[in-house]
């Protein structure tokens, strides 16, 4: 490391102009994409319990097979017979979404549930979305992950295991019982129910 990375500065209150007015991405997976459909409603809430109406959420995720559309994800590129053989990217898959929050602090995404991707010591991670939050009042983005409550793989996930039991709940999206395929994920920036954020 020879150079020092450029400091972050807040996205400010007018980021819509450059990032979401014409370049928001609600639909991460279109109806043709393979996988279990997920309709996701996120909310961002501040330390006073007040919805944050000027945040932006970015999501980065793997496809249903657990592969990222990225040159450094080499799963399935070789035929050495490991358990990643056959993982492919279906062509329209990109895996990125971003939306600004509305007055009530909410934003929505349409996607598919990602597959399991390898993690530390090559153990498979539980299905998760990688989430970054930007806003006025945030000098740098916060990173978190969204897992799916009730997924049996959560109990063996190496990243969830780093988080104290009593705070793991904050990383779990909850299913909307009346609407199959719909999930809710609240992000609390601080307070009693503060979401676990990661130093990546």
């Amino acid at each position, binding site marked *: 490391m*020879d150079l020092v990375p450029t400091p972050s500065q807040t996205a*400010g209150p007018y980021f819509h102009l450059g990032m979401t007015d014409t370049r928001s991405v609600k639909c991460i997976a279109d109806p043709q994409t393979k996988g279990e459909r997920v309709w996701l409603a996120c909310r961002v809430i501040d330390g006073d319990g007040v919805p944050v109406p000027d945040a932006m959420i970015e999501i*980065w995720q793997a496809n249903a097979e657990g592969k990222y559309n990225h040159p450094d994800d080499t799963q399935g590129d070789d035929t050495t017979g490991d358990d990643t053989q056959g993982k492919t990217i279906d062509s329209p898959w990109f895996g990125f979404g971003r939306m600004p929050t509305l007055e009530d602090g909410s934003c929505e995404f349409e996607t598919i549930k990602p597959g399991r991707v*390898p993690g530390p010591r090559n153990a498979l991670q539980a299905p998760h979305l990688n989430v970054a939050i930007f806003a*006025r*009042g*945030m000098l740098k983005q916060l990173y978190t992950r969204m897992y799916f409550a009730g997924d049996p793989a959560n109990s063996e996930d190496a990243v969830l295991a780093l988080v104290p039991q009593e705070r793991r709940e904050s990383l779990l999206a909850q299913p909307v019982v009346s609407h199959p395929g719909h999930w809710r994920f609240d992000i609390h*920036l601080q307070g009693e129910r503060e979401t676990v*954020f990661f130093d990546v």
Partner: protein
Amino acid sequence: MGHLTNERSLAQYHRTPPGSQPPSLYEPYRATIRRSPTQPLTVLPHTLSEITGPVYGHEKIGETDNDLTRQHSGEPLGERIIVSGRVLDDNGRPVPHALIEVWQANATGRYRHKNDQHPAPLDPNFTGAGRTLTDENGSYRFVSIKPGAYPWFNHYNAWRPAHIHFSIFGRAFLTRLVTQMYFPGDPLFAFDPVFQSIPDDKARQRLISKFDLETTQPQWALGFRFDIILRGRDATPFED
């Protein structure tokens, strides 16, 4: 090594040096007080989830996306500027195909945004948003006008120094950077808590572009250089 062929050992990205990035909580910037976590962050090992990210090599950039002075029928008012620079990683290697998005106020210090109530005129010939991609050498360039300073409500008589917002997608989700580029010699630096939030003075200075006679075009526009450094990777894969 044989048994390692199926192991996916990933080169870890460098962490940033202490003081080189702003903290989440910086009380003089009041909006951080209720929007910053109070619990320590959980340090993540870098897995495929962190080291991958949206790569924009094949994006189409529209003809006027990188020229904010040509997006309307007439020309915007203000000092015409050419902003150029390189996006490098912290090992000094160019980051090609990085998507850069910019947005800014017009010459009077007013954003074309419904929440901007600053009583300064909008310019019908200026939107204030653009984007471009870095080339093979990590170089980028766009044309705009110099934004004005503008008042905000953080404290009594608070004014932001003139700046252009930058959003950069590098190679990984963890190298994602949103920042602001400032102009040399701005008298407002000392009073701006957003700029002052970066503890290390040297790191802070890196957000100030440099006037550049080389890229200044005679009889046409002033040139400013702004290089952007993103986090880079260790030379050798981390065997975990």
